[in-house]
């Protein structure tokens, strides 16, 4: 049933630098998580994407990059799905 999503996530965390990924639905509920990512962050990720999209409602949903010295988090939304990828910068 959700095997395709599992496959997508497994393929994703094999990419260089990627340490984790998470997907959330339109209510911020976790659909799937792999690697170093917490299911509890699904709601926060969805809320951030929603708030950022509200800045320019006529544009397509933005890609948000959060970054500190050793990690980055890239997130965006499409349709009802919000996805986030955690990358290690080291």
């Amino acid at each position: 049933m959700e095997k395709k999503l599992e496959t997508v996530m497994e393929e994703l965390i094999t990419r260089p630098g990627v340490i984790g990924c998470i997907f959330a639905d339109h209510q911020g509920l976790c659909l799937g998580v792999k690697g170093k990512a917490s299911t509890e962050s699904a709601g926060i990720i969805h809320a951030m994407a929603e708030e950022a999209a509200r800045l320019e409602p006529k544009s397509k949903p933005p890609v948000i990059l959060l970054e500190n010295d050793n990690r980055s988090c890239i997130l965006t939304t499409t349709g009802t799905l919000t996805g986030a990828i955690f990358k290690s910068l080291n």
Partner: protein
Amino acid sequence: MGCCYSFFCKDENSSQTGDVNERTHLLIDPVSNNSNVQRVNSEDILSRNPNILPKKTDEQSALTRILQETAANVIDVAALGTHNLQQHDYLERMKLYNVRVQQILNNSRHKFNKKGNCILQDIPNPEKVLNCDPIAAEDLNLIISAVAGASAAISDIKVDHKEDLVVPFGLLNS
């Protein structure tokens, strides 16, 4: 400020010692001093009208009584004159009050610091961060393809039932 506060504080010692501070009464207590005021004012009136002094009628005594009652309730601010503040007094008190306020603020500063745990913080060189590329093309492609793939994968999710949704409980026994 001193006046308002001293009205409510019952610290009589501070006003009786003669030291002028922020709790000194600016006006002398009218209840304890009204006898002097009353006497002066009533004598004043009587001396101005000497011709009506010998024949004290009831009307006259009633008027005098009203006058005395009024005088007892009047606070003659100009006659008190004990706290004529000069310009340098104002400045001194202003400095004193500022020092007191600073002391109170310093004592309570730790209460405000407890709330300072913000997730977002200022960074020393913002122009450095603002000048760099917003996002690498590689990362952009990665997230877009990942979300598109996941979206397609989720749209494929469908519930395929293997058992009956409605189970007839107890129908077999009847």
